[in-house]
């Protein structure tokens, strides 16, 4: 399955860039001119270490969605069908990575679709789209 992967030492938590990845995601994917609304987040922790919130397409959200609005596409990426979503946000609450998000103005939540736009935007080539096996569904 397609998965967005980050090399944290290369990324450095955004301390030497303008968070181009977040900006590109927010503006080009979600049409919002604010990097805070991206589907990935990088930051430098107080300890100096880099940290990132990134969806790894684990599928936990698929397992808890009551309406089957979340399904893997043929590339293995978890996609949301907004027509089926009832806005319960169990996907948001049950995402251990905090990578399923919502905006106050949107009824449906959103997530990374491993589209790769952020990969191209990263000035340090710290992001990559990789192909990994689909993990077995977890009972949560």
């Amino acid at each position, binding site marked *: 399955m397609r998965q967005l992967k980050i090399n944290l030492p290369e990324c450095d938590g955004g301390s030497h860039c303008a968070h181009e990845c977040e900006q590109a995601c927010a503006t080009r994917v979600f049409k919002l001119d604010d990097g805070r609304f991206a589907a990935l987040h990088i930051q430098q922790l107080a300890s100096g270490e880099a940290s990132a919130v990134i969806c790894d397409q684990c599928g936990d959200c698929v*397992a*808890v*969605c*009551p*309406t*089957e609005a979340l399904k893997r596409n043929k590339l293995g990426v978890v996609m949301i069908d907004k027509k089926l*979503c*009832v*806005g*319960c*946000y*169990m996907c*948001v*609450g*049950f995402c*251990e990575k905090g990578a399923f998000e*919502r905006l*106050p103005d949107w*009824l*449906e939540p959103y997530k990374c679709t491993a589209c790769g736009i952020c990969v191209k935007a990263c000035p340090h080539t710290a992001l990559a789209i990789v192909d990994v096996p689909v993990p077995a*569904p977890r*009972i*949560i």
Partner: protein
Amino acid sequence: MTLPEAGSAIPQCTVDFTQRTEYHQGLDAIKAAHKVLKEVSFIPSRPEKGYNGRSLHVDLSSLEVQEKPVTQQMKDLFIGGRGFGLWHLWNAVTPATRWNDPENEIIISPGPVAGITQYPGSGKSLVVSISPQTDIPIDSNVGGYFGPLLKFSGFDALELQGKAGQDVILFIDGQNGIIRVEAAPLEPVDSHVLAEILTRMYAVDEADRPNISVVCTGAAADHSLIGMLNFSWWDKRRGCVRLKQAGRGGIGTVFRDKRIRALVCRGPVVKADLNHPADFETLARTGIKLHKEIRTLDGSQCKMRRNGTAHIVEIMDAYDLLPTHNFQFGSHPDTHRIASDVWEARCSQATVDGCWYGCSLACAKGADGVVLRTGPYRGHTVTVDGPEYENAAGLGSNAGIFDPEWLLELNFYCDTYGICTITYGTLAAFVMECFQRGILNLERTGGLELVWGNAEADLEMMHQMARGEGFGVIAGQGVKKMKELFIANGWGDPKLIQDIGMECKGLEYSQYLSKESLAQQGGYALTNKGPQHDEAWVIFMDMVNKQLPTFEDKAEALYYFPLFRTWFGLNGFCKLPWNDIAPADNASTAEPAKIPEHVQNYLDLFSATTGIKIDKETMLVQSARVYNFQRVFNIRMGKGLRANDVPPYRSVGPVTREEYESRAERYDKQMVEDIGVDPAGKSLDEKIAITRTYRMDRYSKLCDAVYARRGWTADGVPTMARLRELGLDVLPEVVAIVRAHGG
């Protein structure tokens, strides 16, 4: 499948949860036989801040369909849900009305917050009627999609009055604005078949099935007083209809007396904000917070997502609280065979089990691939709901049945026949003890050998109930009427029969052993509708955690918790996400039993939905209005006084010698320390009598303390001062009843 030994690792359920017997082959012929008796149109609407401002009244006798306004006074005094149900019922009946009079109503109302999809346990419907078992109002809190879909179609409540001349289906189409009463002559009777057929019949296509909810009952509701109502939803993953039950008090029997075969609501496609709340952001934020809490903590707390409420079977046994052999004992060596690890293995785990959208606590477990061994569906493969704790205890240990597969079959047939599992569990246990003590015998049961643990005889009694035959018809009258019959027939010692028949006000006890918890004795017998733990479950606070040492402490608990829990039913909430999950720091709060953070969640949800800011004191006042109104309603119907709050002695202390001996150390110690009597030299019967006098006196003192705390007279009547405090003095008939009874 092979069940694991107790304590072994839990294998994942290997049953294909899509595999089951289907029942829709004859659908076209069944549909073709429908005849439209009445059709009216209405303008579908969506709630504004939780309310549509109108309810729907259907008179099944005249087939008149009427919209009624929801007034500001209704919202102010009764909020919604159970409150609306009681208010509509009050206006429909007279003190002389009994359950099978045409003016009796069944009211279904979801409450203003019901239908939000963000917070677990927010899709409940409250069902109210005059009970065939108690002759007073009964209220039942049920999941499934009907209430929310009704509200999103445009109605805050549905009143069903009158009696149809033939079996009918009431169809409410909230997408097209049509209400139809249809003659339904060929419909199957039992719920698991009927709900599946009707879901497919009224959905325009497969994608429409989640928008359909069916309310129906089963064959036993035609022949008993203990019929319940099933509320359905479409389980998309399993590809079948699931059912939740409005169980207590026989509302299913009223439903069939009105010749209603089913209610079907087709609501709009559900979206996040159909309730049009005042502050959606707070709903979202509060819901996500609880989802995270459940994700993080459920596995180390109650494991509701794995076991549902059955997680407490072994806990109850360990604390000697699991009702065993008709509430005689509190534990059994075979309990491990029906313990939570068995259900965890037996229920499918790789699926979603909420009874309304957004319930991440997901207790509505399903045991799939159950192949039935008896009855009309013998050989069929079915999905069985649960079993919940009440079913495992009531149908299991209380009847001495510890075989999980038989227990599932009992559970299945209760559900599809439309029988309340709690009621059935308690009445079957009573029957078995009567059999043990010679009050019943093979001749009197028509050959049913109802000895402890005989699941096949137990099931045959249930099948008889559904067929309207034999001893099953007698059992289906419930414990109270069985007591009267057995005593009238001279079949045994009347005092013993009264003592061991576990009912109060005509309703059977639910499945907790209250003998050693004075507070729980009150928690059961001081309820409005009859002994059901949804008002006050204080047994652990009192008996295990010793948090209620004085009469005043117990009275405070029996003031606060019934009011707090009433509030769930006003708004369409489930109780379970309140305290079957707790924040990590809950134990360090000032009042951990109240789960303060979750109380705040509920205040926020109410305010965010309705736009009306409330605090925890206002919350209790909202509940107290409805609670006291219901008490006065009981008085109006001829009960509701101190004399009606007296429990059977089995719930208070040891009735028999073997019960005393099973806990002799405890009872002897109480005699020395609390009664001031030396048990040495006393005969067993003398000790039982001394204990009884002491315990019943103690119960009476508890009543005094609770009535005083609730603002009631010594006879249990709300005082005028309490009515004024609550603003109920604006209702002249309520005032007149209270005055007439010295309040």
